[in-house]
């Protein structure tokens, strides 16, 4: 029998209240979370078919192009695998991602940063992992971005990720950072995560072996979702 999902390690994840990230102050519950084993309501979750995807969904260089012109910026491929905590691949996982353009500007009506929009860059994409849990997309490297927290706070270059595993209990939103960026270690949002190793797990590695010569650099970003309990003694012979 397969069973409930592993308890989340909430010493590893950021806590709700992280005052140097100011918005968290009024948006953090004060009461303890109610802890329970997962039930069928959390051990199931929506699964999406390839019919939701369009042909350019994983190509942010072209998917918002107005006239066939490609987005401006450093061309990169981001690839990786979605795994669970037992190191098993998570196939069929919908991965959504969004980001600013090469100048750090988001295409969003509430956003007013003076850096220019790129008329050929929307900033959203998505893909579904293959049978080995692999995903890949093409984009431009996002720029750093100033935000009103401290008077001079800047986000490091980052790409937001939203991942659907196989269960609502695995639902996760996180951010990917880039190897070597000194701003990672200055960011109040990054530093909501208490453990340096947990931060390092969100830093994508430059992978020269996966670059496309004369075209794009490549970054590898693996994502780990919660694992599911299944002790050897409880296992059925045919597996779970």
């Amino acid at each position: 029998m397969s069973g409930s999902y592993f308890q989340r390690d909430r010493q590893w994840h950021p806590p709700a209240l992280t005052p140097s990230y100011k918005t968290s102050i009024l948006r953090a519950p004060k009461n303890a979370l109610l802890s329970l084993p997962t039930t069928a309501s959390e051990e199931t979750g929506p699964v999406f078919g390839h019919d939701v995807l369009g042909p350019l969904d994983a190509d942010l260089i072209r998917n918002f192009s107005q006239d066939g012109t490609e987005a401006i910026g450093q061309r990169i491929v981001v690839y990786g695998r979605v795994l669970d905590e037992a190191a098993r691949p998570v196939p069929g996982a919908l991965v959504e991602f969004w980001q600013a353009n090469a100048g750090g500007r988001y295409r969003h009506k509430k956003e007013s940063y003076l850096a220019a929009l790129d008329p050929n860059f929307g900033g959203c994409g998505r893909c579904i992992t293959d049978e080995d849990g692999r995903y890949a997309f093409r984009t431009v490297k996002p720029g750093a971005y100033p935000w009103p927290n401290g008077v001079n706070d800047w986000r490091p270059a980052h790409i937001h990720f939203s991942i659907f595993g196989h269960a609502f209990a695995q639902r996760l939103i996180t951010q990917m950072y880039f190897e070597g960026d000194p701003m990672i270690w200055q960011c109040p949002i990054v530093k909501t995560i208490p453990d340096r190793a947990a931060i390092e797990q969100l830093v994508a590695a430059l992978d020269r072996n996966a670059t496309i010569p004369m075209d794009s650099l490549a970054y590898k970003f693996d994502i780990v979702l919660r694992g599911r309990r299944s002790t050897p003694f409880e296992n059925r012979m045919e597996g779970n």
Partner: protein
Amino acid sequence: MVQHLDYLKESASQTAGPYVHIGTNPNWVEITGVWKADLGLVLVGPETKGERILLEGTLIDGAGSPVRDALVEIWQADAQGLHNSPAETRGAADPAFAGWGRQPVSETDGSYRFETIRPGRVPYPDGRMQAPHISVWIVARGINIGLHTRVYFEDEAANEADPLLLRIPEPHRRRTLIARRSERDGLPVFRFDIRLQGDDETVFLDM
């Protein structure tokens, strides 16, 4: 030293930020032409079995102000208590009901609204039946890790014996998970306000 357990660590959560909708609801923020339609806006169709209901409410922060930039997802069983998911082991769910919905809250007043059906009952791990409920997941700027909660229905007697509600140590806090019923145009409307912090703070779950 002992042997190493071969587990990986879950990727740490980060806030969805104020521009989450670029990635989840691009058409809603006027990034059009990339994908046909934003996912999760419509749960029910003409073929969906079950009692139609409206679920609506407002997201409120610790100062009593509406949260205007959140994203709310819901996940629920069909009218028979079965989930439209490959991980559902108890039978085939209504194919005309996806069971998942997602939408941004209103930019003006922090409200949300889902047109859905009343879910059937789903077992707890020990075999007891849970009262009908809808799972809710909330992300936003300022929320470092998505908040899980559940909506129960005021008009369900089964709430009295629900294993989750009974686990809430303070009985008065159980009320924060129970949506209030009214009617509009002959349709049951369940109001479920979500208070992130402070008086009547909603019970959030670590499941």
